[in-house]
């Protein structure tokens, strides 16, 4: 079975710094794949290549069989890819609800229908009590939730999550994990997640890709990967076990 997202040999340099080098991995339809690695490993750059913020200098990216490398972010979104930003980018002057409506308007050209979609998503993320507050007044965990809500409102086939658990309390993390599990099981939503919170990675992903210095150094089940000597050396350290 062809994977929903196929990444084949992509590379990106930033004025000489090889941020991503010849990275290849697949995300099968319906899977939850974790992308981990130490700070500066190239995870977010990898995301930005997939989401169209940067154009890869080499390699191919396919979404549902169609080549999307070189497309603009809005085209890639319309092709069915939703993403969150690690450094959250809420529409600060708009309310939480309005933020999510903007995302929902990708699904429906009617504002009325978009509001109904948005209301459901806001509730799913537990933001309903804050739905008329300006997004700029939210706390960081709520802003992370809003990032997810906005991306979900576009009804993506694949969701790219960039450290949405960071800064959440363990109970909040568990709640978010539960939400993604549910979306994955019920709607078949495919997820590619960058995550430092191992608790979340272990709970969600059956497949993990480890990036270091812009290269894939290991891939496999989380249990195997965390025992991989190369991974232990670069990232987790002896103490982590």
């Amino acid at each position, binding site marked *: 079975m062809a994977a929903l997202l196929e990444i084949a040999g992509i590379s990106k340099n930033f004025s000489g710094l090889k941020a991503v080098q010849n990275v290849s991995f697949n995300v099968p339809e319906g899977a939850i794949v974790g992308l981990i690695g130490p700070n500066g490993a190239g995870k977010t750059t990898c995301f930005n290549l997939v989401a169209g913020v940067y154009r890869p200098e080499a390699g191919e990216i396919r979404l549902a069989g169609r080549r999307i490398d070189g497309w603009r972010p809005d085209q890639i979104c319309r092709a069915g890819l939703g*993403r969150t930003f690690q450094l959250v980018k*809420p529409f600060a002057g*708009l309310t939480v609800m309005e933020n999510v409506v903007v*995302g929902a308007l990708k699904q429906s050209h009617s504002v009325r229908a978009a509001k109904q979609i948005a209301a459901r998503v806001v*509730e799913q993320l537990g933001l309903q009590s804050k*739905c008329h*507050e300006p997004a700029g007044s939210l706390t960081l965990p709520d802003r992370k939730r809003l990032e997810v809500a906005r991306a979900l409102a576009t009804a993506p086939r694949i969701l790219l999550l960039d450290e949405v658990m960071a800064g959440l309390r363990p109970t909040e993390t568990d709640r978010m994990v539960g939400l993604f599990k549910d979306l994955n099981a019920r709607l078949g939503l495919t997820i590619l997640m960058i995550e430092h919170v191992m608790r979340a990675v272990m709970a969600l992903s059956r497949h993990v890709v480890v990036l270091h210095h812009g290269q894939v150094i290991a891939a496999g089940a989380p249990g195997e990967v965390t025992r991989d000597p190369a991974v232990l050396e670069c990232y987790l350290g002896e103490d982590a076990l």
Partner: protein
Amino acid sequence: MRAPWLDGAPSREIILLCLLLAALILFPALANDYLITVLILIFYFAYVGQAWNLMMGFAGQLSLGHALYVGLGAYAAAALYVHFGISPWLGLWVSVAVAAGTGGLIGFLAFRFGVAGVYFAILTIAFAEFARLAFDHWSWVGGSAGFFLPVANYAKNDLVNLRGSPTMFYYVLLAMTVGAFLVCHALLRSRAGYYWLAIRESPEAAQALGINLFRYRMYVVVLSAAMTSLGGVVFAFYYNNLFPEQVFHISRSIELILAPIIGGIGTLFGPIIGAFLLTALAEGLDEIMRTAGLDIPGVKQIFYGVCLLVVVMFLPDGVWPPLAKVLQLDGQRGQDQPGC
């Protein structure tokens, strides 16, 4: 910048607006000619301010050359009327087309080649300056000596050719101001309105949600240019004279953005409140100076500067948002509607 225009305006707001509108409709019957001309000025600034606000306040694209669209609209309709006797009601379509086309060209150059922010603003100034120089040397429309419309006989109103008394212009501009308000109100509740606000707040996030930045920025620039040009048409037929050095001058571009800035950028009432405050106070100042027998050149500009300073320092969101709160007209949506 809150957004007090989404989700069902409270009836209190609508009642107050209707009362205000009724007062303005009856106003010419009670007021003298001087007050009518002041109101004409207020409506003009409210109208073009609303058009500019659409672009800056809602989509975050700063134009400092909006006098360009006023001038193009004014010259196009005036030239067609003077040279061919074409009614301004037909001429305005040419004005709109010329202004929209020029706005589209500026937008295309800017958004296609990634000219944004301050550089975009400079580009808009540059185009206004090009137009000023070009019209200075274009003898068909009078060049630098100016272009004049035949002065009307104020005894008889000719709405078809926009020749008539200030009262006629009063109603034309009142209709335009109300129309611009309603159009902007509707636009903001539309898909495009949400997309513009998203682009204003964060272009990257907007793009990640599937919004074609180029397309929606082009829409707003073309729309704002077209709306502004209609202000120019009325301007030409009201003043009956056009000088490139005045019409396209950067001071005109600045003058027409003061009302929305002082009233509140990104609000629907801001340009209107701002135009009322600025024009009424400036005219009041004029009156005081005249009574006192003082003649200080540039006092109006200094007054504008002081107003701007006060607003920037004490009311960074403009006059309208705090005023709306005091008048309890900011919707209070959160309290009215439980949940979402």
